[in-house]
């Protein structure tokens, strides 16, 4: 009886570890943001439309908003763009874009051709503001509540399903479309 006990236990342990690994494998590369439940970092960046105009975190305070970090060099951003357009059409919440380490003209051309889902696009040319948000790969999308607290971060292309489940659900009820 004990002959099988120890190999059996080791088998169960290994099976358990592998099970957790397999179940979580879709999220393997997406780490939970260290900013969850913490105030969103302050920023002060020029806008893409007009470099003389600036967009600051203070201007966004007092209502929920969504931050989408993107770049024209980013393939997944192209993939999610249609979804962002549909989301923007709902007008449920302001969407702020961080154009991350990108070329301004390429970014303008991108928005002209594919449509502009953003209420405002901030230019984060040297990547400093995105680092403060703990961004490690575009696209990343953050939900920031009316108190300026980061409530959710999605890494990778946005989908309507994730948008409904993780973003719309965090909006105050009366604001829902």
């Amino acid at each position: 009886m004990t002959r099988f006990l120890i190999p059996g236990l080791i088998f169960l342990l290994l099976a358990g570890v592998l099970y957790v690994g397999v179940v979580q494998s879709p999220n393997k590369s997406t780490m939970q943001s260290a900013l969850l439940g913490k105030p969103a970092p302050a920023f002060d960046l020029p806008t893409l439309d007009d470099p003389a105009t600036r967009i600051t975190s203070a201007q966004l305070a007092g209502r929920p908003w969504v931050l989408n970090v993107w770049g024209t060099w980013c393939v997944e951003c192209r993939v999610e763009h249609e979804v962002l357009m549909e989301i923007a059409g709902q007008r449920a919440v302001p969407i702020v874009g961080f154009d991350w380490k990108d070329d301004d003209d390429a970014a303008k051309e991108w928005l002209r051709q594919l449509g502009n889902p953003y209420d405002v696009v901030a230019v984060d040319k040297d990547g400093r503001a995105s680092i403060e948000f703990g961004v490690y790969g575009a696209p990343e999308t953050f939900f920031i509540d009316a108190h300026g607290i980061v409530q959710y971060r999605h890494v990778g292309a946005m989908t309507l399903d994730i948008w409904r489940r993780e973003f719309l659900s965090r909006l105050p009820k009366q604001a829902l479309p």
Partner: protein
Amino acid sequence: MSRRLSFAAAVAVSMMFMSLRASPVDVEAMPTPGLQQRYDDLTHELRCMQCQNQSIADSPVGLASDLRRDVREQLIAGKTDEEIRTAMVARYGNFILFRPPFRSGTAWVWIAPFLLLILGVFVTVRIVRQRARMVESDASEPDDSAEGGTSK
């Protein structure tokens, strides 16, 4: 050990240490040797979040160079190593540290190897004892060895 073998071993070991410090992707020097040393140490213990198994000192990707710039600027601004580590963890989480701190959430990372080692020793000892007992019982049965059984 033959002389040739020990030479090979010495070469292998020195190559190991060479690879630890080579950072061909980084060209900018710090103003003082002291700061350079701290910069080298810090950038080697911070993970490149995009490539994950490289430190930010070893990675050529854009984000790693941005983080190196951040470390450089914080060092020049007079921040301590601990303050810089804390700032990195605040943005990217413990995962950015190659040496995670010992906390309730990370304890298993530190304990598991030792548990596995103990388990391995336990299993090995058991198997060796069992084999020894088998050899003993074989030896006590002349018939078995005469048939050319398991004992050698």
